[in-house]
Each structure stands twice: as structure tokens, then as C-alpha cells.
């Protein structure tokens, strides 16, 4: 089939960006969306033009590197599917396809479809962990974790950190991302000692990075390729309120 792609081209962070139209032909339904961009890029290089920059790595939907807004939807039209796993059998011959980077103040554009998501790393650095030095762990089976808690923790831990939730949110809020980590660690017994401190530090960092607030649109859950549920945000809110009303200021950490 043939497609018309309108791709956001922006040579540098401060440069003016614009949509550029490209016609692609011979698109097979078995191709992935990124493979269409690969083929287009090969043509651009042959023509002496700069190829379209886009992040990608595992192409199996697990590393979280890829991400682009396709026809207004982060990762495109397919539920629970990253852009790299989106296949062309979901498009029709002659379709117009608009491709843009994630748009959020906290995710500045690096080039074309590539954005800087290091804000997510800084949120994890602020508290998204359990403090355990290598060598100090107790025998694993001394700690019983009810299966439903382990399963719930895994549901939250499935987050791949791609940023689609931010891109989908009208407020560019990172609440789903933060809630997923807070919930993953907060429902496990191992995560209890730092539970309050963790949520406070992560939320502070999230706010400082320039993400917006959550106003319950639910767009994040709809866009999430791992179907992380919005009820984790309720958990985050509960943990946060409990922490700020009952605990003192978090003490400084040591290595």
C-alpha cells in the first residue's frame, strides 16, 4: 500500500520545527511502523537528505525507547502496543499519517522525533528504589508475599518508562509513571520502610521537573502500551497524603 507521512522535522532543540510530507510506497502489512521509517530513511540518505531521527532500540516493546505521536495518539492507534510493535496491517492504502514527537515542557525535543526524557531518571533517583546494599539481603523465602500482592506489584512494575502517559495527558502530567513505581514498591513488604519518604521525594521531583498536575482525564491509561491502570494514581495520592500528614521531613540518605 501507499501512505502519505507528515513527519515533524526539527534539526535542533532551539530550531523551528515543521511537518514535512513524504510519500511511501510498497508498504507491506507485515512491516512494523518503524520499518516504514527505516525504508523512508534509506531513500532520504540516497537522496542526500538527513534521515528522520527517532529513538528505538529493542523493537520488542519492552525497552521503552521508541515513542512518537501517530495521528494524535501516542504510539498510534493500536491498544497496548508500542510504536515498534505497531504493524502496518492496521493502516489502509492511501492513508495520511501525522507523526510528531512527545510534546511536553519536561521532555524537550532533541531532534525530529527524539525527546529528552531524563526527567524520568531524575524522579527515580529521587526515591524510586528500595535501599538495599548488595550482600545485605536476607534469604529470599524468609519473606512471604501474598500472590495477589506480588501480581499487583508486577502490574505496576510493567511500566517501560516510554513517556506516552505524559504525551497523552492534556496537562503533560507524569502521574501515571510516578504512580506505577510508587505502587510497585509500595505494595510489597520490602518497600514499607521507605514508603512515605519515597512518595514525597518522587512527587517533589516530578513537580520540579515541570510536569503538570493530574485532573483525571484518564488519557494516560488509554495510551499506556503496558496498560498500567489509573487506580495506581489513587494509590499514589493516598500514600502521598498519608505521608505528608503523618511523617516528618525525610531525613538525608547515606550511601
Amino acid at each position, binding site marked *: 500500500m501507499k501512505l502519505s507521512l507528515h513527519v515533524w522535522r526539527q534539526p535542533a532543540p532551539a530550531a523551528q520545527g515543521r511537518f514535512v510530507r513524504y510519500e511511501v510506497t510498497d508498504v507491506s502489512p507485515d512491516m512494523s511502523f518503524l520499518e516504514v521509517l527505516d525504508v523512508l530513511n534509506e531513500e532520504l540518505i540516497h537522496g542526500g537528505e538527513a534521515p528522520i531521527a527517532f529513538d528505538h532500540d529493542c523493537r520488542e516493546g519492552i525497552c521503552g525507547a521508541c515513542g512518537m505521536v501517530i495521528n494524535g495518539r501516542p504510539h498510534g492507534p493500536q491498544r497496548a502496543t508500542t510504536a515498534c510493535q505497531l504493524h502496518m496491517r492496521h493502516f489502509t492504502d492511501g492513508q495520511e499519517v501525522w507523526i510528531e514527537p512527545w510534546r511536553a515542557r519536561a521532555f524537550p525535543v532533541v531532534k525530529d522525533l527524539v525527546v529528552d526524557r531524563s526527567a524520568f531518571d531524575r524522579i527515580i533517583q529521587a526515591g524510586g*528504589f528500595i535501599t538495599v546494599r548488595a550482600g545485605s539481603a536476607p534469604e529470599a523465602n524468609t519473606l512471604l508475599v501474598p500472590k495477589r500482592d506480588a501480581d499487583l506489584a508486577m502490574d505496576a512494575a510493567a511500566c517501560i518508562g516510554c513517556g506516552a502517559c505524559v504525551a497523552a495527558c492534556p496537562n503533560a502530567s507524569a502521574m501515571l509513571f510516578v504512580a506505577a513505581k510508587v505502587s510497585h514498591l509500595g505494595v510489597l513488604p520490602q518497600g514499607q520502610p521507605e514508603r512515605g519518604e519515597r512518595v514525597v521525594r518522587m512527587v517533589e521531583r516530578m513537580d520540579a521537573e515541570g510536569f503538570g498536575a493530574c485532573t483525571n482525564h484518564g488519557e494516560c491509561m488509554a495510551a499506556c502500551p503496558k496498560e498500567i491502570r489509573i487506580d495506581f494514581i489513587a494509590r499514589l495520592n493516598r500514600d502521598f497524603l498519608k505521608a505528608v500528614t503523618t511523617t516528618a521531613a525525610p531525613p538525608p540518605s547515606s550511601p
Partner: protein
Amino acid sequence: MELRAKVPGGPIQEKWDRHRFDLKLVNPANKRKHHVVVVGSGLAGASAAATLAELGYKVSCFCFQDSPRRAHSIAAQGGINAAKNYQNDGDSIWRLFYDTVKGGDFRAREANVYRLAQISVDIIDQCTAQGVPFAREYGGLLANRSFGGTQVSRTFYARGQTGQQLLLGAYQALARQVGLGQVTMYPRAEMLDVVVIEGKARGIVVRDLVTGAISAHVADAVVLATGGYSNVFFLSTNAKGCNVTATWRAHKRGALFANPCFTQIHPTCIPPSGHHQSKLTLMSESLRNDGRIWVPQQAGDRRPPTQIPEDERDFFLERLYPSFGNLVPRDVASRRAKEMVDSGHGVGPLANGVYLDFREAVERLGRAGIVERYENLFAMYERITGEDAFATPMRIYPAPHYTMGGLWVDYNLMTTVEGLYAIGEANFSDHGANRLGASALMQGLADGYFVLPYTIGDYLARGKLAPVGVNHTAFRDVEAQVAARVAKLLAVNGTRTVDEFHRDLGTLLWDRCGMSRTADGLSGAIERVRALRERFWREVRVVGSGEDFNQSLEKAGRVADFLEFAELMCEDALHREESCGCHFREEHQTPDGEARRDDSRFAYVAAWEYTGAGTPPALHKERLEFEYVHLAQRSYK
């Protein structure tokens, strides 16, 4: 050059304990004066960087991805082995050791493998404490499953995303140290060379992938945790960015490269669907626990699978290997699948796969039971192929997946360059000629959490390192060389893209140095790799500049290194005139088509020394002694 493995004396079960006592310690107050560079942030790199920082060392960690959380360890699906014997099914450290040595077809160093089996139990403790959500029984205890190549259930897992969860555990430990200022993280930075001064690794030169800036980083020790080189085949299950550059550049600076021809082809991947294919996707081998592999008995049978009656199906692994059946090791399963496809029994639109059928498992466990175990894998299969594996069998075919070869390291994980370490898939150490499923995660974390942090201290405590800075002539020289190479890639301005060269190289190696190899094929391949490399430097086209974000340029540098490395890989495969593990030489097989080792001539690690451009590499041999596991032909029948 003499290879000294530095394996400690004494009975094998006491070696590591004794060695840990013999290792010198660095005074806690002095640790902060030592700076360690860790390249790579996968399971090995992230766990090493975090643990070194916990100990008090100053650490810089580099990764080419935009975040350390995206390293390719994240894609490992099935699980991680540990000799916990929670299932009371006869497992032990000895058995894990034995299985790994045997599974590796007797080409691994016994002492390293034993240590790995010992440490395996600590890894599960560590990861559980970090909050890794391993699968649990209803009583709250950890669950296990079995995996290819073994007869016990020792694999711990987190749905089909074990690698992701283990990596996030290590990433979170690393993030904590970044937050505390103990680790400086450099994402989107690619190591392009090692700096060696007076025989010791003293730092690296990196290129910032956003700005193109080239910078030098001084260290007291350098750790390479840069993964494997399966992408030399272009189509592999590795992430697109995985490459050989860091280990290859280290090799050119004096680190010997061991067993480069030991490349694992994973049996359960989704077959390619056309020429546009950019990579291959692995379906966890845990699927082989419940799926049955078959092809139509009749060659060229094009009926849909549901219309082929039971008695016209050839369950070839169950037929050939009654005791292990569908759970034979990866190399055996892959080779047999290739034979079936080559002899006209292939299935699917391109007749390039074999079936993996869950019908019986669904009858036995119910649909819900299968969903519980493999939900994400079935979903992934449907997304890629558009087929529902509950309604029709999956189609699978082998694909390059993991490389057992890597930089040669001694028992301390140090390469032949002092102060330069290689951990995880980047080294050659523990898997011999074939890796068992769920053992890569184990090895990466063993190296990073529990081996390197001890052994590196010994080096730092003993070494009297002269102070050097980035203005040292050695650093300036290497920076200039790196910049010159980048400029050279941009200057060719030819007519073919980097990917076109990469595909040509991959096709050549897959045909000649893939699942089965011959002397003639390899000799020819070496000539053709050389020709392709010359052509690359004449005709490659890299658009854009070296001073900004340029993904074509990144790829070009990596493919240029693959084009050099591929020749060594073929040389190694040509020189090893035996079949062992994944290395199958057609001239060396038993009458029933099994690999035939030649222990009298090849029970050694082949470690290759770089002797300069255009001169043949020099072979050094580390003889392997098998004191505890007796040399025997593997049999899974």
C-alpha cells in the same frame, strides 16, 4: 604472551572463599579516592556501578541509550537460574555447576562456573530484597519453572519480563547512587576507545551522541559491560543499538578476544516476514515447556496446520531425543529445526519456520493456565504476525541471540590489559560453547553484584598508579584518533547506506558462519568480508555532520567495527576443527548428526591477539582441565 587464568588452588568448592580472603582490601577512607569507569548499564554494568558506589568508590557510568534503564538486558523474558532447590527436586550448587559445564559442551573454565553456581543463590536474595516482583505461589513463597537443557525447576521469573524486572532492580540501585552523587551517569554517550598507559587501562574516550563532542575520562580501572555482538548478523534478537565497538576497540588496544565463533542461535524466534525485516523477535524458550514442536511429515505439505492429522505430524525433537524432548539445549533444537526447513518441511508463507503447538497444553492447563504463564508472549506473537496462537500453532525459527565469546578474562574478570575488566556478556567466561537458558541474567548479576566488586578492590589496593590527567599525551592522541575516524566516515560520501553494508555482512555470516559451518565456506567468507570492508570505506554514505545528533554516523562506526570483527569470528570458526555446542562444523559430526568434539586437540579457550591491520591475529590457548565434570559427549536422547 602467557595467559594466566589465576584460578586459585584448593578444592573447587573452596576456591572462591579462599580467594576472597586472599584478595587485598581497599581501606574505606581510600575508596573514595579511586575512580572507576563502567561502560554499559545492563544487568552487569548497572549492578557493578551501583555496588562499587555502595562500597564508596567514585564511579562514572556510560550508556548509549537515553536512559540506563533501556539496556538490552531488559528484553530477557524467561528467567534466572539459581540453585536454591526450593522445589526439592534434587537441585544443588553441584548440579547447576554440572549442567552449565555440560550444557556449554566442556569449553568453559570449571572454577568460574562453580563460583557462578555458588553465587546464584545470593542473587535471588538480593533481587527479592530490591523489590523484584518474582512469581509467587499462593502461600507467598517464590515460584519456579523449568527451562531448556535441565531436568530440575530452578528458574525464577517475573511473568515473561524477568530481564526487565531484574534490570529495573539494578537500575534503581544505580539511580539511588546517582542521586547520592556517588555515580555520575552519562547517557547517550558511546565509548569509542580505551586509553592504555604503561600497560594499564587508564580511561576511555567517548562521543556525546547529542552534541558530537569527544571527551576523555580518566580512571583507575575501566569496566566493560557492553554486551554481545549478535548484531554482526544484522538480523538478530538483539536491540538495534547492540554492537561490538567497545570490546573490539579494547581488543585493538591489547585485550585478547576469546572464542569469537561461539555465537548462540536461539531456537524460538518469529521467522522473518520479508526483505524489510529490521530485527527478529524472540519468544521465550520457556514456551518449550508447554509447546510441542513439529513439522509436516511430508516435505512441501502446504495444508494449514489444523488440517494436518496427528499421524502426519513429525514431532522431531520428541522423536530424536525421547528423554529431553522439546527441552533439549538451544544449539540442538536450533540445528534440528534448520535441518527440517532445509529439507523442505518448513511451514508458513515463506516455508521458513517450524510449528510450536500449544493445543495439548491448553487441554491440560486450560486457556487460563496458559494465559497466566505466557500472556504477554501470546500477545506479542499476535501483534507481530496477526495470528492467534490459541487458534493456530506459533511459527518459530532460530535466530542469533547471544554470544558466548567475548574478551578473555582471568578468574578476577580482568582482561589481558591490566585494570581493564569485562563483565556480563562482554566476556567469554562461563558458558563455554553454548549457554543454557536463564543463565545469562545469572552471570551478568553475579559478575556485577558479587564478583567484580571484590576483585577490582584487589587491583586497586595493589596498584601504584601514576597520576594522569586528560591532558596526558596518551589521552590527547586517542581523542585525535577518534575524531579522525569520525571525520573519515563522513568524508567517504559514497553511494551505499550503512544498513546496506550491514545487511550484506549479516547475510554472508548467517550463511557461512551461522548454524552450520564448513572450512570452504569460512575461507570464502573471510575473503568476502575483506572485500566488503574495503568497499565500505570506499562507498559508504553518511549524511549530516559529526557535531550533532546523527544516528547514521553512530551506526556507521559500529558497522565499521563489525566488518573488522567478522573476519576474526570466521578465522576462529575455521581454526576450530571440531563441533562443540553452538559451533557446528559439518566435517565433524557423528553418524546421527550430533556435534563431535575433539578434546585432544581443542579442549582450550582460543584467545586471539590483535597484531595490527592486515596481519593475521595471533592465537593463544588457555588449556581447559576438567577435574570435576568428566569429559563426555553430551547426550539428551
